[in-house]
């Protein structure tokens, strides 16, 4: 069983390497490799989850070098549950992105760049969850961050590059701080193995311990987008390609949360930091949700709720009780799933209408009932409407807060409930305007070409370019419904492609590209930043992937019993610390 532990890291890397070596050729095989790899990772994660729950933490030493010397990979309950949920999400988003790229008739770039970056990023996320070594955690962060830089700036439109600059520089600064913190850690303790660190931090003088703890916390807080380091997130996420945003929203911030949990539970149990975290959590929740209430763009609104709800998890950690930790883990599981599905739906809305700006949307309930359902369910889940998982996580946290009983904790409970109310207000506002309201007259019909930010510089030279890495020419793809052919894009307001009719919008309503391009909202680009062709019919895999995630979010309600019991066991294991330490360093310790 232990030998399976590195699979979630090694397998995606293997696939990425293979894809790089293949280049842009063999489209079907490549799609199969991506999806197959991630499916296997999901299966392995599930197996690990069950094994870690039954037998305690599973440990593998990379290179065969035991813990204090080498790097150990540790699959305990926390790691495996995060791993499982994240790989489920990764798989769904991969299916979604492939369908989107296929429908956009973007083949070469996604295969040659998007997929390897995606796979490496997911390997980085897995490594971050699994590693038992502080320095390797840094490496894992670098992996997932560098992958995310590529995905974020994919297509290189001006808005994406600008957002990418903010994102990358903030991430680099936090990486630098991470390195400093690791250096200080090694200086003070002479080790970077987390299990050994857990033993060696305790006897250190208070100031040094606090300094290290807080610096590491600052690093993770940047990753998790907790106040005061939350500003970068809503500035950078919404512009990325829809699947990338969805993946970031689900996973990257949760890696930060995961690290905070590890840090507080394993390395620095107790201490005065809990109080600081509480206030940070409160500020994160309230500022985030007020930001969400002020947005008129769905993606931006979702980015703000993303920040806001990180506060819930931090609150749970800061309580430092079994209930609080369990609540934080439960909420993380819920939040990964729901936030990702919402961003995917936002991607579909964009594809259907060409915008995610609420001001320019309307009447989606009638136009796209399926998208409406797929939005409504996770949106209400996010707002914590029972009996969905958002409520379960919130309930666990409220119970833990009330059980704590301190004035700060009760303030946080109140803040959390206010946040919940405002989240509901924000999503209901969006629903009212984007889904219910009669659409404003200038909303683009299906089949409309919305120009990208920059005109493709050599779209005409796509055909017989020499070079072995060239993809099959797009004309070969054909058959994708709704999307206009590249040849049609220059034409004046053409009908919505071969598969277009049948939707409520007749072809006559489609408008010319020149008129539609004028008022486009920020961030309306396809996966590679090209212009978007809106379409009535969504490719079935896109719908399927999103629906699968929505269903996953709902399944937590059915599985609430085992799931919540599991999170309680997870929290108990975390707070006991001993299982982790003795699994890594040997039971004698």
């Amino acid at each position, binding site marked *: 069983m232990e030998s399976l532990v590195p699979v979630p890291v090694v397998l995606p890397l293997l696939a990425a390497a293979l894809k790089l070596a293949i280049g842009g050729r063999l489209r079907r095989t490549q799609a199969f490799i991506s999806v197959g790899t991630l499916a296997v990772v999901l299966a392995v994660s599930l197996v690990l989850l069950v094994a870690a729950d039954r037998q305690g933490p599973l440990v593998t030493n990379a290179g065969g070098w035991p813990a204090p010397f080498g790097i150990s990979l540790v699959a305990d309950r926390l790691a495996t549950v995060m791993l499982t949920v994240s790989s489920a999400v990764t798989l769904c988003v991969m299916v979604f992105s492939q369908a989107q790229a296929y429908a956009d008739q973007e083949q070469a770039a996604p295969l040659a760049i998007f997929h390897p970056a995606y796979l490496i990023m997911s390997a980085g996320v897995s490594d971050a969850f699994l590693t038992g070594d502080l320095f390797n955690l840094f490496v894992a962060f670098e992996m997932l961050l*560098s992958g995310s830089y590529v995905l974020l700036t994919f297509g290189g439109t001006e808005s994406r590059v600008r957002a990418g600059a903010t994102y990358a520089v903030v991430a680099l600064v936090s990486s630098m701080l991470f390195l400093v913190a690791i250096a200080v850690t090694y200086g003070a303790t002479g080790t970077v193995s987390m299990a050994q660190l857990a033993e060696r931090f305790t006897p250190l003088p208070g100031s040094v311990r606090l300094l290290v703890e807080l610096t590491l916390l600052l690093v993770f807080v940047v990753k998790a987008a907790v106040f005061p380091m939350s500003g970068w997130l809503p500035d950078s996420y919404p512009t990325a390609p829809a699947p990338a945003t969805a993946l970031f929203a689900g996973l990257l911030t949760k890696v930060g949360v995961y690290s905070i949990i590890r840090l507080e539970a394993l390395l620095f149990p107790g201490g005065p930091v809990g109080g600081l975290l509480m206030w940070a959590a409160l500020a994160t929740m309230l500022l985030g949700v007020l930001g969400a209430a002020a947005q008129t763009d769905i993606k931006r609104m979702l980015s703000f709720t993303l920040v806001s709800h990180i506060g819930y998890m931090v609150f749970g950690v800061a309580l430092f009780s079994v209930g609080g930790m369990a609540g934080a883990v439960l909420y993380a599981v819920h939040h990964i799933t729901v936030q990702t599905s919402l961003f995917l739906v936002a991607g579909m809305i964009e594809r259907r209408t060409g915008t995610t700006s609420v001001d320019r949307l309307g009447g989606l309930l009638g136009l796209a009932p399926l998208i409406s359902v797929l939005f409504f369910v996770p949106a209400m889940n996010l707002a914590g409407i*029972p009996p969905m998982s958002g409520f379960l996580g919130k309930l666990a946290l409220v119970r833990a807060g009330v059980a704590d009983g301190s004035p700060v904790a009760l303030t946080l409970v109140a803040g959390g409930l206010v946040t919940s109310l405002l989240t509901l207000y924000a999503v209901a506002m969006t629903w009212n305007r984007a889904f219910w309201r009669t659409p404003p007259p200038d909303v683009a019909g299906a089949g409309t070409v919305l120009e990208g930010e920059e005109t493709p510089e050599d779209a005409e030279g796509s055909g017989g370019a020499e070079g072995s890495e060239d993809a099959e020419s797009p004309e070969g793809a054909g058959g994708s419904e709704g999307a206009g052919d590249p040849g049609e894009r220059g034409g004046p307001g053409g009908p919505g492609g071969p598969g277009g009719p049948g939707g409520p919008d007749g072809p006559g309503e489609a408008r010319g590209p020149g008129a539609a391009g004028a008022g486009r909202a920020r961030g309306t680009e396809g996966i590679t930043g090209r212009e978007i062709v809106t379409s009535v019919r969504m490719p079935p895999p896109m719908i399927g992937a999103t629906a699968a995630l929505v269903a996953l979010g709902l399944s937590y309600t059915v599985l609430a019993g085992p799931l919540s019991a599991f999170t309680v066991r997870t929290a108990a294991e975390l707070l006991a610390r001993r299982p982790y330490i003795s699994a890594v360093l040997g039971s004698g310790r």
Partner: protein
Amino acid sequence: MEPLLILHAVAAVCAPALVRRFGRDAFLVLALPPACGFAYTLWAVVTGTPVASHHDWAPALGLGLSFRADALSLLMMTLVTGIGALVLLYCSRYFSAGEEGLGRFGGALVAFAGAMLGLVAADDLLLLYVFWELTTLFSYLLIGQDPASRAGRRAALQALTVTTFGGLAMLAGFVMLGEAAGTYRISQLVAHPPAGGTVPAALALVMTGALSKSAIFPFSMWLPAAMAAPTPVSAYLHAAAMVKAGVYLLARLSPAFGEAVPWRVAAVSLGLLTMVLGGWRALRENDLKRLLAYGTVSQLGFLTVLFDTATRGAALAGAAMLGAHALFKASLFLVVGIVDHAAGTRDLRELSGLRRSAPWLCAVATAAAASMAGLPPFFGFSAKEAAFESLLGGGLGRSATLAGVVLGSALTAAYSLRFLTGAFGSPPGREPTPLAPYGAATFLPPALLAVLGLAAAPFASWYGRAMDPYTATFAVPGHDAHLALWSGAPVPLLLSAAALAAGALLFAAGDRGARAGRLLRTIDSGRVYWALVRGTNRFAGQLTGVVQRGSLPDYLMIAFATLAGIAAFALLHGPVTTAGPVVVLWKRAEQPVVGVLLAATAVLAPFARSHIVLALLVGLTGYGTALLFLAHGSPDLAMTQLLVETLSLVAFVLVLRRLPIVPEEEQRPRVPPAVRAALGLVTGLVAAGAGVLAVNARSETPIGTLLAGPAERSGATNIVSALLVDIRAWDTLGETTVLVVLTLGVTSLVFLRRRTYALERPPAGHRRPPGRTYWLTATLPPGERAAVLEVVARMIFHTLLLVSVFLLFTGHGSVGGGFAGGIVAGLSLVVRYLAGGRYELAVAAPTGAGVLMGLGLLLSVATAALGMAFGGAPLRAFSADLAVPLVGKVHLSTVLLFDLGIYLTVLGMVQDILRSLGAELDRQIEEEAR
């Protein structure tokens, strides 16, 4: 209970399909689940079977599926299921055949019915909360049924936010109650109520929830607004079922906590206020539905008063009123729905002559309104009598309550009259309103409900006995109250007569009374709500504008300022080591020299006026670091650092071609440079200080010093490369992928949307002549060549490659390794490119960069996989010593394979960077120049 709920859920999910299949007749099918519920409830009542079940759901969260129905619950269940079935029946003809959105409407309505059933049968606080919020959610969807109506959307949002506000407060209260009592089971809580501590606060929170749900002042505004919903919804949710949830909860908890004085006094006074205000507002309304809505608000206030008086008598009256109200109010709403559809309006200023054109409808409405006004022999009369009787006696407070209730009843009588005359009267000088025919399916439900209001009256005493088990749970008997068709008690009868007479007078006063009612507009909580919403929106917008600056420098300053704050916090909260820290300034003389130089370049960097100077200065810090490594006795690191720095410098310079020479001037930085400089200084101090403190605090032996032995035993003589490719090879693998993915990023940005990523071969005009090719043939046009450089580059190319391979192989024992080797190989390409341009690069490059990186990564990862497959651990090294003839003993190891992978990856990376930042930029520049 669970099968019933599942039945509702299934029906709700299937509703859209059913409607698509059967049109509006689908409502007949949808009426089945509530009808089943009704049958079940009747069966339970008649046979006396206890309704109780418990299933675990999530014990760790305190959630359980506990259901239990006592007399009160059974009463509510009867109302919820019975009226639910009737309303769905009504829907089947109320809507016109092809109306849009019927599927989702039916689904939401049945789902609501299920949630409501669960709510009144739940025996667990948290489960009750689950159903509570579900009813809120479905109410939101039902109110917004007509998405085109702005009023409807606003009302839906208002109802949602107001009731969820209360609901969330209630959740907090529930959890506090549950934690205090140690159980969330309602039956146990009521039997053994917790006291003291947080319980009063918890009760206040719970009460907030109940009041908001039942539209008690100050939360009453949402209910009249919710009349934007289709009439069946108003009849069911906003008269019979959902709004009763709050009252139900009060009734549930009142036996246990009614003695808590603040809770009781607050609820009773708010109830009274609501009863009077609502009644008064109803006198002014011209829209029949809104008139009824204010009437409902008033009656809900009445019910709140009764249940929170918390005596047996009052509870009995409350239970009777609960049933009576549901019957007559649902009936009246349904009648209004018929009138609205048949006459095309529900404004009582426009209606006329309906008494003649629809006599049966008028009879039904009169019966229901009579029950509402409290006329004998209707059930409403019996309930009101009991209420008056139960409020007799007691102190001043009780008498004031009685007075308020009588006043409220007078108002009720007045608006009942107003309703009847408005809807069915024939004012002089108004043409009779034309009336379209209406179906039996719409007429039957209101008629049935109205008849029940009359038929139930003779069974009033039976009803009272049936409620005994519930009323008996109240500790205080209070004044005796009798529920009977004709109790014969003189005082209540007098009060009833007085109320009716006063009501008639109020009605007769007509507009004068209504004008007085205009004053009430000033205390309209709806205005407060919208002001609050606007305020929140404005506040949110402004706050976000301040917090979310969207400025990268700001975010960085926040980060560094936080770091400074962290240092201060750490020093304040943790004792510093008592012994002064030992600081060794330097061990070798080179170190301070290099250090000062490094610091100087760092200080100079911000003053650099052009990009190229900046790049050089940054490069200098890199070279300086390499020197420091060397001075520290670490040639491996020094060499790697040197190579990397050189490569970075080349990359920088290549990119700079596309940037303006001088950085764009910042528009007057918001934060003065001095502050930034200070922040930088503090950051440096914190980092350095933390290092000094940390090393001085160490008491354990560092792992690094313990590593030499094991490493040597494994055959490595160079500890640095042993760390890189064996002990911590997992890190190296990770960082290799980082290199790869970042290179991909560069490629993706530079090539943007070009479909081909291949290097361009020389164009046709420059093609070498067919036939023999010459080793030193130029690829550049004659005018642009630097012949000497080009030739030298070609001559050292292979030497460099050889050196790189040498480095690759010596890594295991001495200075070198795959990474250094890869960079040297890459530098050989750099030299070729710099000398000969992009076509030269195309000639020199062995194969596609992507393929190289892919192969390299594949080798490294395959080594990892090999270790997993055969050694149980990723990257476990295998080695073998082979005796090769002529060469001698050769040490082969998978470590070498891993290193080779790194070598290839790095080579691919350099080539890719040259291809994108070099060749592709060349091409773009040329194109622009053309």
